């Protein structure tokens, strides 16, 4: 494994667009304090940095609080049905490769009902970016455990906890053939913007899992900002090693990480900031 040195994206941006050019002006339905605001901000900043005009970007989503995001941006969008964002995004990209296609959604949408599409989208490795706002809960349906929920998390539908081992999205993505996987934090939109810029520039399927607290049904997640700490980009040619690394790192610690396999980005990719540095260890 090797660590890549990085530079801040904003240094090199030809700022034709400002982040606000990517906002639709529609008022989000999200609860005040929802992590998804940070993801929206991160996406707007990343697209401004990339200098992509809004009409060349298509945001595709399924159903959930997080999946409402396309309506809040000024780009083209496709708000489809629950769990099916990735095949729609793939269909768009295959016939219009010049468009920047970004799928977004939640952990329930992407890992549960859309889990099969997730695996096969990684396998297909089309040049799209997939951002999952993981709050470890079905937010929109008011608080049921999702595939990433801790086994002992108590809820009305599963008193005492669901009792199942959580799904490890990063390890599954890398093992299934995604070229770029990263975990970011909605509490750091700038750091997230950097990951998004990287993911978009990286050829093939890029997957970014964003820890995005659900303030309403998982209020304890507001503590995430104290414990999350960053790591840096790792380029690993050996997919099995990358999978094992992802599995070990993301399951055991509150870290963000970026692992990329295969080739380097086609375009120069530079960045520095990662997740907010916090001293708390997990």
């Amino acid at each position, binding site marked *: 494994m090797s660590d890549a040195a990085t530079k801040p994206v904003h240094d090199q941006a030809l700022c034709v667009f400002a982040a606000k050019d990517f906002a*639709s*002006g*529609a008022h989000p*339905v999200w609860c005040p304090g929802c992590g998804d605001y940070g993801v929206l901000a991160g996406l707007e900043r990343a697209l401004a940095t990339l200098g992509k*005009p*809004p*009409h*060349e970007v*298509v*945001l*595709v989503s399924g159903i959930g609080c997080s999946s*409402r995001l*396309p*309506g809040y941006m*000024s*780009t*083209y*969008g*496709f*708000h*489809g*049905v629950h*769990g*099916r964002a*990735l*095949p*729609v*995004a*793939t*269909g*768009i*990209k*295959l*016939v*219009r490769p*010049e*468009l920047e296609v970004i799928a977004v959604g939640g952990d329930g949408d992407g890992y549960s009902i859309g889990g*099969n*599409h997730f*695996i*096969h989208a990684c396998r297909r490795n089309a040049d799209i970016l997939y951002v999952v706002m993981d709050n470890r809960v079905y937010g929109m349906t008011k608080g049921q455990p999702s595939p990433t929920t801790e086994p002992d998390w108590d809820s009305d539908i599963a008193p005492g906890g669901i009792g199942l081992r959580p799904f490890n999205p990063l390890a599954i993505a890398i093992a299934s053939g995604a070229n770029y996987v990263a975990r970011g934090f909605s509490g750091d939109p700038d750091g997230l913007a950097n990951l998004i810029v990287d993911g978009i520039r990286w050829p093939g399927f890029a997957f970014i899992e964003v820890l995005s607290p659900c303030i309403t049904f998982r209020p304890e997640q507001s503590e995430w900002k104290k414990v999350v700490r960053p790591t840096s980009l790792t380029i690993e040619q050996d997919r099995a090693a990358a999978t094992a690394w992802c599995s070990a790192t993301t399951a055991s610690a509150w870290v963000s990480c970026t692992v990329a396999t295969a080739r380097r980005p086609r375009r120069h990719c530079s960045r520095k900031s990662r997740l907010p540095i916090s001293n708390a260890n997990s």
Partner: protein
Amino acid sequence: MTAGAVFLRAAANAGYYGMMTQLFGAQVRGGESAALVQVSTEPIEAQPDRYDLFVALDWDKVEQFAAEIPLDEASVIVADPEAGAVPAGIAKSKGRVVSLKMSDPDAIRLERGLYGKRVNMFAAGAVCALIGVDAKHVQAAIENIFEGKGAELIAANVKGAVAGAAAAPGLTLNFRLDQATLAARWLISGNQALALGALRAGVRFVGCYPITPATDLVEWLAPHLKKLGGRLVLGEDELAAINLALGASYAGTPAMTVTSGPGFSLMVETLGLAVAAEIPMVLIDVMRAGPSTGIASKTEQSDVNLAIYGAHGDAPRVVLAPISVADCINTAEYAVYVAESLQLPVIVLSDQSLGQATTVIDPSSERPKPLKRRTNGVAADKPFKRYAIGPDPITPMPLPGTPGREWVAEGLTHSEAGLPASGAGVHVAQINKRAKKVQRFDPGKYWGESWGEGDIAVLAFGSTIGPARAAARRLAAAGHPIRVIALRVLSPLPMAALARALDGVHRIIVVEQNHGAQLYHHLIGQKAIPPSAESVARPGPLPYRPSEIASYVV
């Protein structure tokens, strides 16, 4: 199978019309099978009441097919005595059994080792000779069917067929057909014809998942699509298949998905999305016997309800059904134009019986007039009103990549600008907008077809039209003229055209191949036919025979 294919193609080469359907046992690969071939100087659109000639290559598990191969005392059963006694299920037809030693006596040992006893080519050669198809047509058929398999294999097969033809006169059977008239015709299956029509209409993206009896449609289409610069994506399931197609269509490429009942059930979710978000797409359902996994390889017309009404909520769409194998081309082409111009899903209901019937057709020189998607749209204030409510329910859907027209395709109830909304006003306005598109749809002459005179009408769709027409011809010859009305547009029902076609009719008989009388109830429910109309409805997989319909009518 190959024997049937050679026979049909040789007859077609000689200028005859023909049709071949196939029967398979439960074996995944190999195993018992039967090819049912008809040839005639007249076009053929239905399976017959009976077969004149049954040639047994062997008797293995043949009785399972007995119900599908009607034979009678006038039929001739040709079999090699080496294959053993005629099984009871076949013998009970009382058909005359004629012995024929079928292995090619001149085959050298190497040929036998390599190509088996070549009884199939022997049989094809014998049958072709019996009906009077010249050896040169048989040779051409073999060359076509074994194209690319090497000269040695072709020569061995031709040799087998020649041996069969030489043995034919010894049978002293008379099955000679009248001289055929040569014309430029096509040998095509319904599935191939649907694929061709879709390609003609500009479909350049196909999302699919394998399912019998729709797979051969996509397999035939794949290389052609590739040549045309299109793209076929094999999804991980039908949910993916239809969403892949919908994404491609949203991005501006006419797209379709192809499936059969079990896959269609999975696709219903996204069918509703295509309606709500107003995205064009074509869904071809090659129906098979259901419910659930049903019978994969056999026909039924039991997805009518699913096609017309499947989806939660009010989800208006257009449902078409091809009128014949030949018409599959135009119906598919038309389906794409309707989808593109109305911005909604169009379902094409075919069935195994049409889809896998290889048929000699006279290709139509007429094609539907192209209709295009509206992509323009006036420069507007932001946000762009993709779902604007106005006099025209069809509103422009700019292609992604168009500056200043950004919009979000939305499956939730939405405002004119495509933002999720839950007010009563927007909900009703958008429901009405989508309903209006379908209400105002006028298929013109594409509503369906009607033949014949008389005050009795048989109303049918898809593969039941052929036997209904054959029954009508027979009844007319016997002095009982009837009308046959074929519906191409099953939904929304072409009320005015149907009323015209039914003018002066006092007895209406709706014939369909499902137990629930799905089309009949649709017609009654929409008040397209009076309550006095009669229903002839029974499930598959046995095809309707002309005699079954004729004997019901009189």
